[in-house]
Each structure stands twice: as structure tokens, then as C-alpha cells.
């Protein structure tokens, strides 16, 4: 539940106030004359506002080159991006007079606006949920790009560890452990069960202990620790990958929306 609490409630309050105010104005204006997007001053006003908000949302990647200008920090940029994006969708709806569009471009604009907003909100939720999931359940923390390298190191360590071991341990390693240590194993399952069936996957180590001499048991324990670390790295990789893949759901449609919006404005200005 805590994941749904806004980080900066003031932004939510301000956005809600702006949204309600906009709705109030829209209904007040609409009560006087039937809403005709683009032709009634109100409709045009909200269309321009939506376009400006979409434009500013598209400029979000500039926060770093602009050193946070004009908001001062990247966090404020992000807050503006999120709440501004939501407001832009509301403004699009107001601009449309809360009616279904009549043409293809209108439909595309509406669908893309809705998609960009909803995918953005999905991203917000993922970005709140996944980090907390990882911080609370994984002991290992690693940089996404370095995880394959770290796993290769683990594998090398494991190889060195079993060198000169008994045939039983060697066979167990070759058959059951080594394949799992070979590279990152990405899985969506970590979203459901972050442990990735850790207990089940570590259970064979417990069974194997019964077949080893007391001298070899510490070696098995070390191997188990390496394997457990590998599982955590897999989880890290899979979850960080979700945080990266989500962008693909959001950015290309948003850029397309921006392009169509420009087309919509140009055509309307030209044929007006």
C-alpha cells in the first residue's frame, strides 16, 4: 500500500487542483455553448495546453544537459513529467469535449495519449515496486551491465573450487550446478517470486552433503554460497531488465504521439 503513496504529495495536490479547475472551466464554458474542439476558445485553449505539456514531457531527457533547469533538480523534473503527463491527457479529453473522435488521426491521437499516460503510470508503479522488492529481498546489489561479468567470475570461482574434488562432487557440479552458472538466466518469474524458487534449487546441495566426506562438506557449502549468489544476480538482472524494458512501452508511443500532434496542429492551422 505504501507503494501507492505519492513521494511528493504537494505535486499530487497541485495537479488535482489544476485538473479540477480545468474541468470546472470546461463544464462552465460548455454550459454556454456546445463544445466544438478547436473552434471554441476553450477547446483550443485546452488543446494548446495539452500540446505544451506533451512537448515538455518529451523534453524530459534534457533534464541532465540542462542541469535540472528550470526545476532545479531532476526529481522535480520527473514529478513535473508525471503529473504534467497525466494533466495533458485530461486536457486532451477536455479538448475533445469528452466525445469520441471522428477521424483516424483523432483516434490515433486519443489512443496514443491514453497509451502514453497509462504506460507512464505503469512505469511509476514499477519504479516504486521493483526497487523496494529488490532492496527488501536481495542481499546482492550489482550494476546491470556488470552482472554477466560477475556471473562469469562466479563460474570461474566455482570451477576452481571443485578442482581436485571427489568424483561424486565433481559429477554433481558438472550435471546440476555448472549449467545453471553458465550466463544470466532471465526470468519473468522473479516478478511473482523474487526468490526464484531458491529453497527448491538449493535443496540438492542438502541431499548431496550426505554423500560427501566431512572434509569435502565445506567445499560444498562454498559452492552452495556461490550458487545462491548467482540466483540473486539472476533476480537482479531480470528485475532491472524490467525497469529498462518498460521504457520501450512508453517512449516510442510518446514520440509517435508528439509527431502526430505536430501533424494535427499543422493541418489544423493550414486548413483553418
Amino acid at each position, binding site marked *: 500500500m505504501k507503494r501507492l503513496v505519492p*513521494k511528493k504529495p504537494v505535486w499530487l495536490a497541485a495537479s488535482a487542483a489544476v485538473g479540477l479547475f480545468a474541468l470546472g472551466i470546461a463544464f462552465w464554458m460548455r454550459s454556454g455553448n456546445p463544445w466544438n474542439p478547436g473552434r471554441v476558445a476553450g477547446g483550443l485553449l485546452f488543446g494548446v495546453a495539452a500540446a505544451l505539456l506533451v512537448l515538455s514531457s518529451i523534453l524530459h531527457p534534457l533534464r*541532465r544537459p540542462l542541469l*535540472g533547469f528550470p526545476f532545479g*533538480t531532476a526529481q522535480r*523534473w520527473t514529478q513535473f513529467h508525471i503529473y504534467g503527463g497525466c494533466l495533458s491527457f485530461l486536457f486532451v479529453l477536455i479538448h475533445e469535449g469528452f466525445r469520441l473522435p471522428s477521424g483516424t488521426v483523432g483516434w490515433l491521437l486519443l489512443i496514443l495519449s491514453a497509451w502514453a499516460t497509462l504506460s507512464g503510470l505503469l512505469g511509476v508503479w514499477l519504479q516504486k515496486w521493483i526497487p*523496494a522488492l529488490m532492496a*527488501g529481498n536481495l542481499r546482492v546489489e550489482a550494476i546491470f551491465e556488470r552482472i554477466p561479468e560477475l556471473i562469469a567470475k562466479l563460474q570461474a570461482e566455482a570451477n576452481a573450487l571443485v578442482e581436485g574434488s571427489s568424483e561424486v562432487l565433481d559429477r554433481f557440479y558438472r550435471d546440476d550446478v555448472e549449467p545453471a552458472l553458465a550466463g544470466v538466466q532471465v526470468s519473468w518469474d522473479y516478478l511473482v517470486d523474487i526468490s526464484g524458487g531458491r529453497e527448491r534449487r538449493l535443496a540438492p546441495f542438502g541431499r548431496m552433503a550426505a554423500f560427501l566426506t566431512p572434509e569435502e562438506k565445506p567445499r560444498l557449502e562454498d559452492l552452495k554460497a556461490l550458487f545462491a549468489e548467482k540466483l540473486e544476480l539472476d533476480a537482479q538482472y531480470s528485475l532491472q531488465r524490467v525497469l529498462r524494458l518498460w521504457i520501450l512501452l512508453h517512449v516510442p508511443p510518446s514520440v509517435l504521439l508528439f509527431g502526430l500532434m505536430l501533424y494535427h496542429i499543422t493541418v489544423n492551422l493550414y486548413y483553418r
Partner: protein
Amino acid sequence: MEPREATDPGNLSRAFPHSLEQPENLLTIEELKELPIFAELADTLLKKIQPHVLVAEYRPNDVILREGEYSDAAYYVARGVVEILLAQLPAPSGPETARREPVVTSVAHVAEHLLAKSERERAIGRAVAEGGTIILSDMPSEFRRDRQILLEKGELFGEISALSRYPVSATVRARTEVVTVLIRTPALRILQRSAPKFKEFVDRRYRERALATHLRNVGLFAACDDKFMRNLRERVELVSFEPGQLIVEEGSPAAAFFLVRGGYVKVSAKSGAADLALTYLRKGDYFGEAAILLEEPWPFSFTAIDSVEVVKLTRADFQELLTASPHLREDLWKVTVERLKQRGSAIRHPVESEYLQMAMETGLIHGESVLMIDLNTCTRCDDCVRACADTHGGIPRFIREGFKFNNWLIPTSCYQCTDPVCMIGCPTGAITRPIGTTEVSIDPLTCIGCGNCSRRCPWGNIINVPYSHPVLKKEIQLATKCDLSLGREVPACVQMCPHGSAIRVSFRDVGLLPRLLPAVD
């Protein structure tokens, strides 16, 4: 400050012997015995200090110590003459000074200006005595504007800076060909413990030169008059403790008041079987007032975290101090109440104590500005690292890797230590921290890539990167470290974190830690 220029690394062993990891110029036991300062020491003691005592030769005008920097050795002049220079002179009193002062616009401005100046002087262990004489804490001489200060054979300087980790109070330059014997901090500590005459000598010097300045740095003694200070000077005892050594135990009778002059002290209280860390004390902090005011046994235990130097005042002297300055009693009661509250809070919220314990174990207590990333909210986007790289010509000063405590990641990034040991022995003075500021920075044009600072950093937070040096005209391993994005109001890593997960924490104010670092839910 002295002009700095890139130096030929070949000269390092001569001019900056303390920058070497395995010095070749150690003195033999026989050579040590020949020196008057060690003449009376037993062979066993000489053997102990021998690995930490070395000889260093300087040519005329070579800089031996730089004002404001840190040192890990005392210098004994074995041959030649050295000169003491002050790069920034404290302003003398009188009408002449008034004319030279910058134009000030308001009373507040004047106060601020004067306060800043005196703080700087105190920070580097200097005091202006009556008549305009400047007392240098770690030099055996008073400085006067109209007189050149020279130290000759047999003089010792720099021991107080080395022992108490105070910045060096003046620049020392070789006037002639000079041979000095460097007595590094471990040797100084051994001598303090095992050579009563040496300890007496160093303590006397400390009492005469530094104690009053250091005491006045402590709010408690700031208003005390000179007479009182002189009186106190002779009565205090200077005591050293080894890392981990118990200074006082909870429940034992309270018989003294302590002022920390160097190192860190852990304050803890028993709660059942656990020993809960309540806070830690550092240079300038004091303890013992609670027990004396409450007239009870010690309510806390105090343990040395590292090598600790304290000024000890007996209960009777402390009571006298309170009688002489009634306002002190009121101030001390406030401190006492605050500490007792801390104790209650620690017992009620052991997690807060856990943070303090972690800070003490990992060395974070040294940090004036430690980068911490909340993994609960960090989306691992690495914008912090990219922003750092943007600010530093494409080379980031940290990576998002380090150690994890609860939900916090402490990346491998400079902590901006209170006493930056990385600044000791930089051959060119490339690594600096302006007095009164937090950031320790490295000038790439002056750095010669010797690696001394990165080897000295106990936390591995200085990284050497390949660099084509424009002055030396060759490839060097440039030392790089976080400089808090020098010139920007907020460090880039913090400013550019899109989720506000990166924060900077000063471990100086431990009272704020529980609020800054809330427990994991």
C-alpha cells in the same frame, strides 16, 4: 598558499620521503642513538620506533610542510636551517589594520568577517597573543611580522599536527641544505606511551602552544578568560588511548571530565545483554559532565574507536570551573539532558543504534559528506553516475557499487573525511581542502599520479585513471575522487537523481542520522 607546480617524480624520495610506502631511508638503531632526542631511550624502544623513523633531505627552498595541509610526522632538524612562513597572516590589531581591511557594509558583515577569520586561525591551530605575536600550535616559535622565524639543529616541529590531526599551522621551508628526521605518527604514539620524558616534552609543548586554542574552540570554554586558561593549562592531564580501549565504564565512579583532542570515542549504554551505541564523540567534543552534574556513577561507557587523545580535568577542577562560570552549568545541563534523551531513545529504538554502530565499524563517522543511495526507491538508472561524469569531463568520480546496509547503498565515493589522511604527504600539494570547507579536491594539473593519496585512503575511494598530463607531457595515472561537483551548489549526483534517492549525509551530526536514515519498514 605556496605556488604549486608539477614536480619530477624522481625527486619524490628526496623531498617527500613520507609519501613512500616502504621507505628506504630508515635510520639504523645506532644512528638513532646518535640523535640527542633519542639518546636516552632504551634499545628495545628504539627497535619499536625504528620502522617509523626516517631521514629526509631538502635543498634550499624546498617546502617541507605546507600550511593548512595534514601531516603524519614530527620533524626533527638534524642539520641546516628551516624557515617558517605564514601564507595568510592573521590581521594585527590597530589602526593600520583597519585601513587594510576590506570595506564592510554592516555590523553583521563586520561580525561575520571577524568570526570567519578567527575560526580559520583556530582551525589551523593559531592564536594571536597580546602584542600581535602569533602562536603556532605545532612550531616551537612565536611568529612576528617584523621578524624572520628560523629553526635550527635540534628543534622539533609538527608533532601536534601529527598526533591530533590538526592542519599544519604554517609553511616550513628549507633555508639551507637541510636534513630532518621524520618521526611518523606510530612512532610518536609509541614514544608517548613508553618514553616519559618525550611525553612530558610533547605534553608541555601542547599545553603551552595548543591547549588554550583548542579549548577555546570548544563552546564550553570559549568565554573563559586568559587567567583561567593559564590556570587550567597546568592542571589538566593529557591522556592517550589505544583503539578499542575502554576509557570509562558505565557504572564506575565519576572522577573526571574529558575533552577529546584527537580521534573518535564511542558512547554506549547497556541494555540487557546488549551494548547500545548512543553516539560518538570527535575532536572538540567532551564527556563526563553528566556524571559530575548528576553526582552519580558514569551513566555511559566511553571507548576509543581509534587512537584517542584526551584532555582530562579532575572532578575538583571541573567543579571549580563551574563555580567560576555559572552560565556553564546551565549549558552543561542542556547537554546532559540531551544525552540522557539519546540513551532513552536508543533503548526504545535499537535500530537507530544499529546505524551508529555501522557508521563506527565502517568508518563512515569520518565522513563530512557521504553519498548514500536509498535502494528502496533507486531505479538503478545510473543517472547519478552519468551526471557526475558530465560534471567531470566524462570521467565519473564514483560507481554505483559499494557496501550495503539495510536499504542503503554506500557507493565507493569519497566521504570527505573530517581528517583527510589522503592529504598527507602529497608531493605537489595537488590535493587540497580550503580551511572551513568540506570538499577535498585534486588539481589535475598539479597531480603527478604518484598514487600516494589513493594508497592512503582507508576506504579505497580515490581512483587512478589514465590521463595525458598537459604539463608533464606524458601519460600518468591521475588520482580522481569525488569533489562534491566543485563549483555547484548541490553535487551533481544528488541534483540529478530523478527519484531523490541519492542523498549526502554528514556523520558529524549524529543526532540527525535517525531522521535522515529512517529504518526499513
